[in-house]
């Protein structure tokens, strides 16, 4: 009789053995197996495949990557990607292959060049600009709201500087307004 323990350990070993050799990437329900003799290589290739299937855009679709899309072309490109990864091509070679055929449209992470400079750094420039505006507004408010010590002298000074004395006409209007105000109020209360 086999003891339960030995069965468990042997099956665990078996599982370990199987998974250590091959690696797989499951993309859109399909399993892509990587099972050469080199376990490390399998794992890195499966990872590369997964990564590129995420980063490459399906050229037929507006906004889906290769791993998400059901379009025929996406399936074809996944197969192409798989066979190229199997052949040991590196990320750069595969991306070049795709760009040569389908243009930079397929890159969800476009290369940094003169054309894409604004794309890459534009957001940071805008953020910095927003920061500058934010800080300058805050500083402007702060200096405006600074509590000033009000003394007879300062009031005198400020009135002297900013307010012209009322003309005779204006004095008259002011008087009228001030005198008519209470009567308005009583009228309202009557209503």
């Amino acid at each position, binding site marked *: 009789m086999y003891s339960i323990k030995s069965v468990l350990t042997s099956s665990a070993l078996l599982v370990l053995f199987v998974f250590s050799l091959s690696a797989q990437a499951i993309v859109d329900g399909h399993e892509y197996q990587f099972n050469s003799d080199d376990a490390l290589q399998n794992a890195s290739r499966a990872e590369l495949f997964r990564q590129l299937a995420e980063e490459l855009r399906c*050229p*037929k679709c*507006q906004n889906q990557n290769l791993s998400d899309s059901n*379009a*025929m*072309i996406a399936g*074809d*490109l996944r197969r*192409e990607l798989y066979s190229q990864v199997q052949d040991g091509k590196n990320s750069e070679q595969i991306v070049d292959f795709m*760009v*040569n*055929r*389908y*243009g*930079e*449209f397929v890159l969800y992470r476009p290369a940094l060049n003169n054309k894409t400079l604004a794309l890459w750094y534009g957001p940071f420039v805008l953020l910095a600009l927003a920061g500058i505006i934010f800080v300058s507004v805050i500083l*402007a408010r702060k200096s405006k709201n600074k509590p000033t010590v009000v003394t007879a002298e300062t009031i005198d000074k400020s009135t002297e500087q900013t307010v012209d004395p009322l003309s005779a006409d204006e004095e008259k209007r002011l008087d009228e307004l001030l005198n008519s105000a209470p009567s308005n109020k009583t009228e309202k209360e009557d209503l």
Partner: protein
Amino acid sequence: MKRWTLFIPFAIFLLLGFFLWRGLYLDPKDVPSALVDKAFPEFELPTLVSGEKKSLSDLKGQVHLVNVWGTWCISCKVEHPFLVELAKSGVSIIGVNYKDDNDAALKWLKDLGNPYLFSVDDENGTLSMDLGVTGAPETFIVDAMGIVRHKHQGPITKGNWAPLAAIRDQLLNEVGTK
């Protein structure tokens, strides 16, 4: 604060509005082809009808339309009668039968007419992949040197043929003067 600064948000709004409005008239499916002004990719494929091997050298020396088609493709059916018409008027068209069933393709050509000088049987889609084809129909205008000069996605119709014809005529003139 100066008075004009109050109009900055409005100016930004106008600018954004302008770009969004322009965006309404852009076709997001109009992806620039990576192949324009590059050499037509090398290939060696059998023709659909005779099975004779054709390669890039068979394309050179003349201006061609290279039309990618398949019987599974509905827009190709829409396009087909106009291609037949074009072929009758002397436009040389070469077909790339994209991932298709040969019997169905032969029946299609027999029933609907064959506008192609020859159609190569791109069963595995290798040539189409090198061409950066994302779906059928797609048509390339290839000059006499075997350089792709223009790519058209979607069916060619009476309505959109004129600009393509202009490109082709220009290429024909290039051949004439050389």
